[in-house]
């Protein structure tokens, strides 16, 4: 006699289901582990602490953007203007630096907030596809950034601020790890512990139903895009610290694609719904490790692009076959 607590009720069938569920839940994490193990074996110096920190540092920008992107995609939307927002925040920061670090920080954040508001507002109120809205703002915002700097790279010298790019706690732990950790905690709370997260996933699942259930679509969507823009702004500030310069032409270029790829690998479906936060995080590291792996093994960069393609297709395929 089987009681409710027993797992293996009907032998083979149940075990099969368990494996699929396991894969679906932990598939991405598993892939990440496999990648790490593979690299430890075939890549020289992979296991070194230095390398680990490098991976954390190099992926930190994409991580921030991807976290924000997860929320956006969970509502069924998309934001391809994040790269441009990064650039403009960076430019705004450097522009106001003569007035002090705090003023420039505020300027950068205000810029991000404003355009996040524009993105969300237009997408929500005018009911235009987020892809198109953020396409237009992407072109516009980068144009503004290039306008302010006249297309040149604007460098600066500010020893205290540049610390943010290179500071290591206790001489060992890169500060990026802390920034990323804080961002993850914040987004985790937003998505999983607060009603906001429920609203986000509800809108992504069925916008009409969410509206009828009383969720304020417009306000929620605006918040979503504002958060994504804020993340991009912070990422821009972080990059600026590392570069000691604002490069309106190149900063954040194509980073939205890395972010979207990470989110897709992580399991969040582009049509919206359940947000797989840990999946996104794993996705970011998978992409970064592929890049690192290709670099350290002296393979031309172009091959990493092909590998990434296969990984994305494979990852989504694994998750889809479970529906």
């Amino acid at each position, binding site marked *: 006699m089987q009681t409710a607590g027993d797992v293996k009720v009907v032998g083979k069938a149940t075990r099969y289901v368990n494996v699929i569920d396991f894969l679906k839940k932990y598939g991405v994490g598993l892939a990440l582990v496999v990648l790490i193990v593979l690299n430890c074996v075939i890549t020289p110096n992979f296991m070194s602490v230095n390398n680990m920190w490098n991976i954390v540092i190099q992926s930190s920008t994409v991580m921030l953007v991807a976290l924000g992107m997860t929320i956006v995609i969970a509502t069924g939307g998309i934001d391809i203007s994040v790269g441009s927002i990064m650039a403009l925040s960076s430019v705004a920061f450097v522009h106001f630096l003569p007035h002090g670090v705090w003023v420039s920080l505020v300027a950068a954040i205000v810029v991000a907030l404003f355009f996040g508001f524009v993105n969300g507002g237009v997408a929500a109120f*005018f009911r235009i596809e987020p892809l198109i809205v953020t396409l237009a703002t992407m072109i516009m915002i980068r144009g503004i950034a*290039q*306008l302010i700097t006249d*297309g040149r790279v604007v460098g600066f010298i500010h020893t205290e601020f540049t610390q943010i790019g290179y500071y290591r706690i206790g001489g060992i732990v890169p500060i990026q790890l802390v920034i990323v950790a804080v961002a993850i905690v914040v987004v985790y709370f937003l998505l999983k512990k607060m009603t906001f997260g429920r609203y986000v996933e509800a809108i992504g699942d069925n916008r009409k139903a969410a509206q009828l259930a009383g969720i304020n679509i*417009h306000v929620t969507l605006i918040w979503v895009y504002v958060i994504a823009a804020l993340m991009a702004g912070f990422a821009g500030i972080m990059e600026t610290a590392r570069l000691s310069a604002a490069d309106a032409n190149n900063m954040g270029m194509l980073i939205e694609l890395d972010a979207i790829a990470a989110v*897709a690998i992580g399991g969040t479906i582009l049509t919206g719904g359940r947000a797989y936060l840990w999946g996104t995080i794993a996705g970011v590291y998978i992409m970064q490790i592929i890049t690192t792996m290709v670099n350290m093994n002296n393979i031309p960069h172009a091959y990493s692009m092909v590998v990434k393609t296969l990984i994305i297709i494979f990852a989504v395929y694994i998750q889809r076959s479970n529906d």
Partner: protein
Amino acid sequence: MNAVKGFQVGAFLKNYNVMIIFVALFTFASISYEHFFTTLNIFNVLKQASILGLLAIGMTFVIITRGIDISVGSVLALSGVLAANLSKYGVLVAIVVPLVVSCLIGIVNGLVVTKVRMDPFVATLATMIGIRGIAFIATGEVAVRIEGVSESFYFLGRGDVLGIPLPIYIMIILFVVMSFVARYRPFGRHVYAVGGNEEAAKMMGLPVDRIKIKVYVLSSLLAGIAGIILASRLGAGHPVVGDDYHLQAIATVVLGGTLLTGGVGKLSGTFFGVLIMSLITNIFNMQGNISTWWQNVLMGVIVLLVIVSQAAMNREGRGVRGWKGRFRRLQQSGV
């Protein structure tokens, strides 16, 4: 009586808004710049537009099926690179092989979207990255000069027929043909059906998956043709071209009135969308003193304005469900 009349004006505006915007811009440009209405300038504009135009045709079909294809830029680059690499084997090989490869890529795209059931954006994002990578590998990340090929190859991108550049002919012919196909051939009808309501199309017995694959093949094939023309014009295959062509293509398609949600769209709209984008760039150039950066800003603003006004015009008019009712509903939802 007046209400009926007003309705007609509204409908006219809605259906032909792209053409109206184009005519307005064209008139403005002709009046404002004396060098605008010259054969040389107009041919230049059309030549530039032809590459984008080819991409936009394919993109229109894909978007009508509720999909998207952001890999077109990469396909264009790879096609050009292949054409350049194989140019030493003669014109025929240099043209046929890239086209075949483009078709194969289209099949891959279609398969990933239909069999793996991936979201088209992510699927074509993946292929975009991969194809760009292959293009880099094939050239060692440098541009490949076209050599050992007869004049006939250069004719594609640089030649004239009756005084009009060949690429323009290609673009117009393809627009006309594909417009005919979209409207009067079964394939076109099927594409609209799949985009309008996929479930219904499936239940009607349409081979939905096969139609989708064909649409992606069409998109990639056109991108391949565009790539060959571009390589012919430049005299080399660059692996880095087309970086944001897919975005421009999407913009022109949406400007033309095709909805991203699928099922609705006209190639004629896309055609004018392409012309409008090229016209705006040309106007910027004519103006002379607008820096490139301002052009980007203005382009973004213009695209946004056009789209917003289109969205506003497409609302079902008055009433609580429509545009004017928006504000009443906003109040009710407590914003």
